[in-house]
């Protein structure tokens, strides 16, 4: 792994540019412009900008990936005309939504109506400042990245409910209430499944969790936790079979019925952003993150940005599974969803915690092989 982090790269970049500008400036200017505080401040901004652009591009690529996969599942070709194999279709769609006017219902509450989607998107983007995409991508060595990421992830129902309630539409309100009920119900098994990972890895830090999986990915020993996590994540992402809050057959478009133009684009974009976050979390927690098992030849793991590429490949494969589920399952009903959440998922999650505890105690299970790094 290279020692250069994204932050150090952006710091060097800003430093080099400012030094070049400073070398042609007269006396007070050249000292002021190479001021370390200014360089640090600008470096953070550049870091954030790179992160934002990378995130957005990835999300747009993810939408394309889903469209193409769904097309194949449905025996059609999906977007084909804008760009190679429709790669630029989402940019065209986004541009179309961008230059539409925002139509606010007259009786809607302006503050809630406008701030809901914005806060929803910003809160979800915030997670990308926390998620370690590769060894050099995490913005800071926080000891509790996992908790922070999941805490920010669970902001969403609040913003959805705010925008649903303030649009002053019965369908939106029902969708918002369903969304809040569903997300709160599935937050619990999601966190409990994560606890199993934390017990085995012995850390709340995502980077540590990934390095603990250097030799053995957690999906094998923690298979039950993986199942619970993926199912709860499907509910958190509001995808079929758990897409009740925006069940188009009964609630028109659910909580975003009254939204159009750019605000609708915010919602759509953030849905996929959260899908991306969910898939990345699955990879980080259960599928070894950016590390590869030792049997992979060194040539494949040592090229520049190898970690990011590995992680993204895994992420897109995990997301393909989500798309597969979407293409082949019907939607469940609200009461059934909540019943499954409280009656089945939570006991299963607790069971997976128990299994994780047993695993840590025993350290070596013949069925799963040994996990050498356990119990440090």
């Amino acid at each position, binding site marked *: 792994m290279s020692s250069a982090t994204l932050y150090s790269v952006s710091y060097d970049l800003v430093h080099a540019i400012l030094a070049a500008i400073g070398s042609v400036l007269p006396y007070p200017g050249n000292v002021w412009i190479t001021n370390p505080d200014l360089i640090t401040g600008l470096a953070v901004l550049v870091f954030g900008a790179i992160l934002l652009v990378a995130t957005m591009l990835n999300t747009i690529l993810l939408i394309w990936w889903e469209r193409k996969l*769904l097309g194949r*599942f*449905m*025996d*059609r070709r999906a977007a084909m005309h804008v760009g190679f194999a429709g790669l630029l279709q989402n940019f065209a769609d986004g541009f179309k939504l961008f230059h539409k006017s925002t139509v606010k219902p007259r009786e809607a509450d302006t503050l809630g109506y406008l701030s809901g989607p914005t806060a929803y998107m910003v809160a979800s983007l915030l997670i990308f400042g926390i998620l370690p995409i590769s060894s050099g991508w995490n913005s800071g060595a926080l000891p509790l990245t996992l908790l922070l990421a999941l805490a920010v992830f669970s902001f969403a129902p609040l913003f959805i409910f705010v925008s649903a309630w303030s649009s002053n539409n*019965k*369908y939106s309100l*029902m969708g918002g209430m369903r969304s809040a009920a569903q997300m709160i119900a599935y937050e619990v098994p999601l966190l409990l499944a994560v606890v199993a990972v934390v017990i085995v890895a012995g850390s709340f830090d995502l980077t540590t969790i990934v390095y603990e999986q250097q030799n053995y990915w957690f999906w094998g020993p923690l298979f039950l936790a993986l199942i619970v996590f993926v199912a709860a994540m499907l509910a958190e992402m509001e995808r*079929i*079979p758990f*897409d*009740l809050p925006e*069940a*188009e*057959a*009964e*609630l*028109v478009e659910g909580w975003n019925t009254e939204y159009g133009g750019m605000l609708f684009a915010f919602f759509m974009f953030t849905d996929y952003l959260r899908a991306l976050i969910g898939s990345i979390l699955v990879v980080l927690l259960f599928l070894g993150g950016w590390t590869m098992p030792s049997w992979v030849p060194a040539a494949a793991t040592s090229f520049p940005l190898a970690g990011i590429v590995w992680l993204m490949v895994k992420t897109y494969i995990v997301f393909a599974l989500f798309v597969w589920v*979407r*293409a*082949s*399952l*019907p*939607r*469940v*009903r*609200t*009461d*059934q969803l909540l019943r499954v959440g409280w009656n089945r998922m939570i006991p299963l999650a607790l069971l997976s915690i128990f299994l994780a505890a047993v695993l840590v105690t025993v350290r070596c299970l013949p069925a799963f092989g040994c996990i050498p790094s356990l119990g440090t």
Partner: protein
Amino acid sequence: MSEMWINMGPQHPMTHGLWNLRVKIDGEVIVDVDPELGYLHRGIEKISEDRHYNEVVTLMDRTCYVAGLAWEHLYIIASEKALHIEPPERAEYLRVMCEEFQRLGSHIMWFSAFVVDIGLLTPLLYGMRDRDLVLDLFQSYTGARMTYEYMRVGGVRNDLPPGFTDRARTVLDWLMARFDEYDKLTLGSDIFHKRCDNLGILKANDCIAHGVTGPMLRSAGVKRDLRKDRPYAAYDRVEFDVAGADSADVTGRYLVRMEEMRQSVRILRQVLDWLDRNPGPVMARELPRWLGAPYAPVGREGYLLKRNYPKGVGFSSIEEPHGEAQAYIVNEGGEHPYRVKLKSPVFSNISAARQYLVGYRVADIPPIMGSVDVCIGESDR
């Protein structure tokens, strides 16, 4: 949340047409419903009084846009009775073929819409893809994919193009294989059973009390099918079974419709064989002169003048894809029917909505209404 009325429609993804279902809900539970029809009323019955007998056929195509040929058939049987005209046997077989292909097309269309109601998107496109093959067949012998204008008083407009029966058999083989695929995608899923079993129950007594017919009635254990009970056209000369179920719920209606499609394929294979063996005329020879014009070929002899033509009334009822449709035509002499009265099965089926919706949840409305197979064009006319 206290009880409130919400309007599901007229623009709502659940409706599958232009109508409004007013629902009174208490939280997520349905307390009362009030279906409102009439948004798509075009006055087809009244317009028919001002049209030539054969021109009314174009209006019949537009009563139900997914089952146009079935409605043409209904109208043509009634008007032939009113006009005392006997169609040749080959025309009757061709009409049976039309109606059964139409049943396939309509049921596949229903399947596509129904699976979307429970959140399945993939079978929607599978259904539309397979329905296209049926539409291709329609196009090859009627010239149109949607509004066919194929039947005429005294027969049908034209015979089949060469090679049609073989192409049709290929399509039927393909469809039979696809029906199993549909079943895997729906019945093979536990979620489907969770959503649809014991849902929207309408028992046989209630069906009969509300005049509910078609697959809804048959799914309640009443094996009533006009093709069997009161055979018309060539239905007494083909073999098939009446599909049925006992559960009276959404799954039952699904099973009945899937079985009906398989039976339609069975009927179609017999009809195609018969058509191959028995060439012949497709129009009655002794048509009144004024009825031949302007499109249909005119018989060589036996022209009857308008003033001499006998008066009469004609009643017909057929097993349309949605249920039992009825037509009553009064012929007071002349080129136009004096009165055309149509009875749509969908109208009765929707009217019983309170019976099969109250007590379930809002999320159950799309599957239940989807299982009714709503076609607003024919209920509003």
